[in-house]
């Protein structure tokens, strides 16, 4: 999941794209964390994430049984989702802060925007993981547009060939954009693939 900080794209493209993670720390505060995770999950769902996913359960794009997810959450489970709206993210963070549930929260996104949010909510950001670029055989990487879409999966499950194939099908008119988003977003088990951003990127590529 480290890769959520390495999402590719311009500042414009990365606006309204926030990856939320909640992580109990093994051996530190994971004891009895399941109930806190359940509470945070409820807060997140009320705020309205653009996508959310769980290992073994899939993601919101292709359907997920949240009641089943709740039954299987345990003390070292993690919550992962993405928001496509700053106000929704802020609402979730505001409530999580006010309930002081004590689990670590990270958010990936534009640094300036995240620091603004911290200022508004009187949060003191603790640690940053800064993306310092990609090195080596960068000549083997595909078109930047393909990378912008595929790097929205933090575990690299969205292959370049899948994005290229779906874009070609869109160009040919054999699928619509909703199907395209569903096809590409399906492999991202963690649910941090942002369908709203994908729609914008795919639309601009189709143009």
């Amino acid at each position: 999941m480290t890769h959520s900080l390495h999402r590719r794209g311009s500042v414009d493209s990365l606006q309204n794209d926030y990856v939320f993670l909640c992580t109990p720390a093994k051996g530190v505060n994971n004891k009895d964390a399941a109930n806190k995770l359940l509470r945070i999950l409820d807060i997140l769902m009320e705020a309205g994430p653009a996508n959310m996913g769980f290992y073994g359960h899939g993601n919101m794009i292709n359907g997920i049984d949240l009641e089943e997810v709740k039954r299987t959450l345990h003390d070292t489970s993690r919550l992962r989702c993405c928001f496509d709206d700053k106000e929704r993210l802020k609402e979730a963070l505001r409530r999580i802060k006010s309930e002081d549930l004590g689990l670590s929260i990270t958010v990936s996104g534009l640094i300036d925007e995240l620091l603004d949010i911290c200022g508004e909510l009187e949060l003191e950001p603790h640690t940053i993981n800064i993306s310092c670029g990609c090195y080596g055989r960068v000549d083997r990487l595909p078109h930047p547009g393909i990378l912008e879409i595929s790097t929205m999966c933090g575990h690299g499950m969205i292959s370049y060939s899948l994005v290229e194939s779906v874009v070609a099908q869109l160009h040919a008119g054999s699928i619509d954009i909703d199907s395209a988003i569903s096809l590409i977003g399906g492999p991202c088990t963690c649910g941090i693939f942002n369908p709203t951003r994908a729609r914008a990127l795919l639309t601009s590529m189709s143009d």
Partner: protein
Amino acid sequence: MRIDPDICIGCLMCLDYCPAGALRQNVDGQLNSVVVADDLCFECGLCRRLMICPVDAFEESADVDKFPRVVRTYFSNPNTTHKLTLVPGRGTEESKTNDVTGRIKRGELGMCIEFGRPGLGSTFRDISLMTKRLKALGVQFEPNNPLTELMDPETGSFSDDLLPERILSAIIEIRLASRDELDCVIPVIMDVAKEIDTVFSLSVISRFEESGELPVLKKLSDLGISCAPNAKINLGLGRPLVNL
């Protein structure tokens, strides 16, 4: 992963999904089937997990749980939890819980060198080119990391049978005692970048100063590293908070 040739109907629906590019149309006799290129497969399990095959022709390879091939699953399948770290995915917590673990303190830095990302994958042979050079520099590898566990503590290399194993990605995670150590580490990292046949994504983990500033940004800039406008930020909501 393998495909049962007696079940596969050659619909080719699976071909584009493979992050490793390991699914191939069989042109060796049985034209109407797909095969898995064993050497390329990451064992990430995506093809089977997604249930894209209309006839359920995917099945695990016989050696998927045997060393050394088992490392492919550990470093490629996000549904796998590492036995060492109890952390799923590639098994590291990096900055995610630093507010309660205090692994990286003010003045110190963490670095993550994620081999194979984005999208190309890596062999341990390529990873070892970096780990050996970093070991020679005397850097401290994160102990609670599955890659460190596999590493020879004296040389920073891996056993010969691991070297050809191909994985989706692995994170070399190191700790620096001060920003000044970047002066030695960054040139080595950039040097190794010229030798490898894949890519890596580089990140630096830093505490915010009490003033909210991040002096490491200027240091990185001075070393010719341009940082992305996006990052991952730990919001300091974990308890008990470690404020060192």
